């Protein structure tokens, strides 16, 4: 594989993996929390939160990228504030992870939310009567039961993150070795005369990674459905 892919292609693959894994892992706790809120709580602004979460799914990705740039860019107050803590997103791989995470977030939340909704709340009641506080109920009953669903959601998000392009290129541009993810590299290769061969190699790599992730996720989701039922 190292032979088959050129060094630049290889770097793009490595970067994309890093970006997608980070995007997935970091957004997972937040996704879990938001999915839980949406599945279980009633509060004012719930539909607004729901809309906000879905926004990246339906907004043009370029717009999402510009919104990110306008929020986290080095010129913005917020960007400077973060920078004083040593956190920089714009034109960094961290920004690519942020963009990928934001774009994959709705898919992750949808999947986790479904698995939470499938959990029999009577089991949670039973745990409460046995002495488990809210947090313990969540940790010992809800979480184990949604684990396959959670994993499925995370993997779907990972696959989506691997393919994210519009928001990424807008937010962090296309700096080889720093922010040039596989999709950006494919795009760049497609613009260079004779770059098609490299582009198609990367397309194959991303299809293979995404498809494996996807099949794994579907399989886990199906297992989840079988497991969560109360007994």
């Amino acid at each position, binding site marked *: 594989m190292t032979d088959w892919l050129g060094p630049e292609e290889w770097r793009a693959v490595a970067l994309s993996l890093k970006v997608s894994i980070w995007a997935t892992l970091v957004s997972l706790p937040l996704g879990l929390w938001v999915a839980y809120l949406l599945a279980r709580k009633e509060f004012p602004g719930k539909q607004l939160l729901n809309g906000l979460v879905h926004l990246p799914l339906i907004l043009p990705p370029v717009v999402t990228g510009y919104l990110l740039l306008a929020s986290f860019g080095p010129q913005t107050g917020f960007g400077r504030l973060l920078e004083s803590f040593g956190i920089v997103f714009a034109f960094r791989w961290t920004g690519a992870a942020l963009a990928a995470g934001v774009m994959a977030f709705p898919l992750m939340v949808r999947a986790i939310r479904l698995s939470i909704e499938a959990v*029999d709340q*009577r*089991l949670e*009641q*039973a*745990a*409460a*009567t*046995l*002495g*488990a*506080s*809210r947090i*313990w*109920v969540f940790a*010992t*009953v809800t979480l*184990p*039961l949604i684990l396959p669903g959670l994993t499925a959601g995370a993997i779907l998000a990972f696959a989506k993150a691997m393919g994210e392009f519009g928001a990424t290129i807008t937010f962090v541009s296309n700096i080889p070795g720093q922010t040039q993810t596989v999709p950006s590299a494919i795009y760049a290769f497609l613009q260079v005369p004779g770059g098609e061969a490299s582009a198609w190699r990367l397309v194959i790599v991303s299809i293979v990674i995404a498809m494996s992730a996807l099949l794994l996720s579907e399989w886990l989701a199906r297992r989840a459905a079988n*497991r*969560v*039922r*109360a*007994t």
Partner: protein
Amino acid sequence: MSLSVTLQHQLGAFTLDASFEAPEGLTVLFGRSGAGKSTIVNAVAGLLRPDAGQITCDGAPLYDSATGRHVPPHQRRVGYIFQDARLFPHLTVRQNLLYGRWFAPKSTPGPEFNRIVDMLGIGPLLGRRPDGLSGGEKQRTAIGRALLANPRIILADEPLAALDEPRKAEILPYFERLRDEVSTPILYVSHAASEVARLATTVVALDAGRVIRQGAASDVLSDPAVTPLGVRAAGAMLEARVQAHHDDGLSQLDAGGASLLLPRVDQAPGTRVRVWIEAQDVMLATERPQGISALNVLETTVRALRFGAGPGVLVQLCFGDTLLLSRITRRSADALSLQPGLRVFAVIKAVSVARDAVGDQPRPEL
């Protein structure tokens, strides 16, 4: 060790306004479907917050609308046994059983794990997951799980309703043992007369959200004025002692001085048991009948008669301190000129007493 409940709660068109005490032993909350039984149990467990009232367990207030106190479910230390076992599907039987242990106060040690496992006969299941268990095994595990959380009170909401007859017969004795071997008070919901008869120490009869009668099981059940489950389910609970087992499959019991012959009961001679005799299985005769198949003929005195709307009459009889109920037609009551004080013979066929109508008798506290 007792539970005291006073509740008002409104659910749609339904109004609950009930007040009762559950002392030591097993208190059966019974009444028709929709009477409000589950609502009460959920309020005791803290899964429902009533509009008003007080709930006190063992002196500790669990809920008091006056002070606004509402102890959350996980701090109430109730052992709730649900109709559907609600075992955790991702845990083994052992882990299910030990679940409450994680959260139980370490200071007051609960029942010993092995003792409960033995009592419920679930030793061989410990490593399995709930998935593959039969309905009866699941329910036994659920009982063990509730017990091992070392609760101050056990709640059971129709724990047998989802099981078929053989399974019911399998679980009932465990509740008898619970009542007799564990000193925790039990609040048990049922609308099956046979369960009530076999298990109850105390009975709280509920109708349309109100307590219509409460008291010791033998008193309440033998009262012809109380038939919350309908006259066809009326009957009396006799306390008896097993005397001997005969070769022809019959057992001889002594009930308040009178001798009863019943199909073989499982308990050893000397054991005190309770026998449920349905009112409609008791025939009355003014003379001692001769040459009949019925083996049990008791000399009794009529104490009270209750005429209902239909063609039947409930007749309360007594022999010694023991009460018995008989249901006959109004026409027969007239023909026999029944009236309080009259001496009559109660005729009971041995075979009409079902096997599951004989159970262990609650023992005084150990």
